[in-house]
């Protein structure tokens, strides 16, 4: 079934993503840069559920969804088939999924593909929890966040684990390109997709995407919140080419305090109501300072 759309996007409108969804915005821009000669392997999650309700699809490029944890391995198979067809250099192969698919359940399969040095761009839309199933904590959930499996209570201040350092894991696999971005800076995001796709080999791009229902934010604040993640230093925006740090987005001077970022999000609301919570806020501020020092933000 095909409908004629009045837009030139490779992801058609008509999907069922929430108003203010950071993920669908990032998906659209990644795909616009990648262009028509692209095949997408999609992990299970909001990115798939909101775009592919049978018998319709939002995608104007070849697109496949198989399981939650295997987008990258499915992309490996696509890539191997393209090599056999002699089409490897004509087609961008992109695997993408959320942070649960990337940091947790799919990590082993991503590692296998990176070890094989396959020419695939993996894009992680990081909204820092399992949002499609109803806001459960993942390996990407930051300390202090309220999720349905890390609820704050008398004996809890929310998630008590540190966020997994996925870019470092990518670097340990000799990925030729490793970068982070946010939906708060679309131009930067577009440039990174362009650069990644110009290189041959395994590439990892992690994009912080605001989740309105999962972060308890206002849909008008999607861009603002993502920008503050970068500006406060809590989400370092960095770029590595062949293992060398080639770019880091500087924080403004003076740098906004972490509270400015946290207070826009209901998932951190509880931290401001107790002394224990305030200790977590201070810990998050220290993580931001450490990021500034480590990457020269």
């Amino acid at each position, binding site marked *: 079934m095909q409908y004629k759309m009045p837009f030139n996007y490779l992801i058609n409108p008509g999907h069922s993503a929430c108003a203010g969804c950071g993920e669908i915005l990032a998906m659209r821009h990644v795909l616009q840069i990648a262009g028509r000669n692209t095949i997408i392997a999609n992990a299970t999650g909001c990115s798939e559920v909101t775009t592919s309700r049978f*018998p319709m*699809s939002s995608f104007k490029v*070849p*697109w*496949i969804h*198989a*399981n939650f944890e295997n987008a990258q391995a499915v992309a490996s*198979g696509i890539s191997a*088939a393209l090599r056999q067809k002699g089409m490897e250099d004509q087609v961008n192969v992109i695997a993408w999924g959320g942070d649960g698919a990337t940091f947790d359940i799919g990590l082993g*399969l991503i590692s296998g593909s990176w070890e094989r040095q396959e020419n695939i761009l993996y894009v992680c839309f990081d909204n820092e929890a399992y949002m499609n199933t109803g806001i459960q904590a993942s390996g990407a959930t930051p300390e202090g966040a309220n999720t349905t499996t890390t609820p704050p209570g008398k004996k809890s201040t929310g998630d008590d684990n540190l966020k997994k350092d996925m870019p470092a894991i990518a670097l340990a696999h000799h990925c030729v390109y490793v970068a982070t971005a946010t939906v708060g800076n679309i131009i930067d995001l577009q440039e990174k997709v362009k650069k990644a796709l110009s290189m041959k080999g395994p590439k990892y791009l992690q994009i912080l995407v605001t989740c309105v229902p999962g972060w308890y934010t206002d849909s008008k604040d999607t861009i603002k919140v993502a920008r503050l993640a970068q500006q406060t230093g809590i989400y370092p925006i960095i770029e590595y080419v062949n293992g060398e740090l080639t770019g880091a987005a500087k924080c403004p001077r003076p740098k906004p305090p972490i509270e400015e970022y946290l207070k826009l999000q209901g998932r951190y609301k509880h931290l401001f109501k107790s002394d224990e919570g305030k200790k977590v806020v201070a810990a998050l501020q220290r993580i931001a300072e450490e990021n500034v020092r480590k990457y020269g933000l």
Partner: protein
Amino acid sequence: MNKCIEGSHAVAETINLCRPKVIAAYPITPQTHIVEDLAKMKANGDGGYEFVRCESEFAAASIILGASASGVRVYSASSSQGLLLMTEVLFTIAGMRLPAVLTCANRAISAPINIWNDQQDAMTLRDSGWIMLFAEDNQEAVDLHIVAYKITEALRIPVMVNMDGFVLTHTFEPVDIPEQKEVDAFLPEYSPEQGQFLDINMPVSLGCFATPADYMNIREELAIDIEASKKFIKTQLGNYKKAFGRGGNALVEYYGAKNPDVIIVAMGSVVGTIKDAADELMEKKKNVGLAKIKCLRPFPKEELVKVLGKTKFAAVLDKSISLGQEGILATEVKAAAQNKLSAKIQSFVVGLGGRDITKDSIKEIFQHVQKRDSGLSFVE
């Protein structure tokens, strides 16, 4: 060409003759020799395929899924825990109607861990939507793989070819490996229609999610197509016999006395032992026969009912068990016989975890099934 070679090597040579484009596999005993041989052929420049070495069976199944969705011929092989680890993806391959051929070198399932042969691995996957063929010997394993590609690419239903681990995979016996030009003539290059695979010139979305309004219809369609595939499988087995002079189109093969009182029903390599035992019993004027199930899915109910006919006793041998019920094949046979046959059908579980099945144990089963119905029996 006739060669005395190992079963695994025979399968690897056959797969290469089928000209797959993408092979992905992860090592597990007793499947390893097959994929090692394929890796060696590739290394020597004799294999034209991509050999994707991966970090788990889950990845291997996912890689052939992606390659098949890209419109090329694919292959993988596994066993036991490996097959179970693939399970989620195997259901998806079938549900997405992607052609694929996979060899299962049948092996027991943990716990306790055990590397030897039984068929619990494949039997556990019987609801996955794969066509499941079982080889009696290495020649049949070779032949079934070639037919499997013919079936899977025409019907877009994946095919699993089962061969007993060690008993077949590691056994040297004479096997006739077809010539390349014979295989090419029987199995032309795979060229799916536009719109069936991922192609930048004809974008399609594969693997969309279905709501209650559509899911059931899609599953029903798959069920109907798998049931209907029997006819096509038989045609292709018949065509193979015409082209190569071996095999036959029966999904249930009968061997033994003309009007048997007892029929032993079995799958896989144990069939050879049963034939020998049946010969000896028949020499002693015992009225016995064997029904060999070549195809478990789709289950050849009608053929089986015809073969069992007026027999009084059917002993179903299973190298697997549905714990809390009985041998899995026994339940299948009983379901097929319901309201159609009057035979007493009894479940005998044999050979779990590589336990030897001897002619004597077959003869004991022959006696046992005629005497008493003790429900499920484990045969030592």
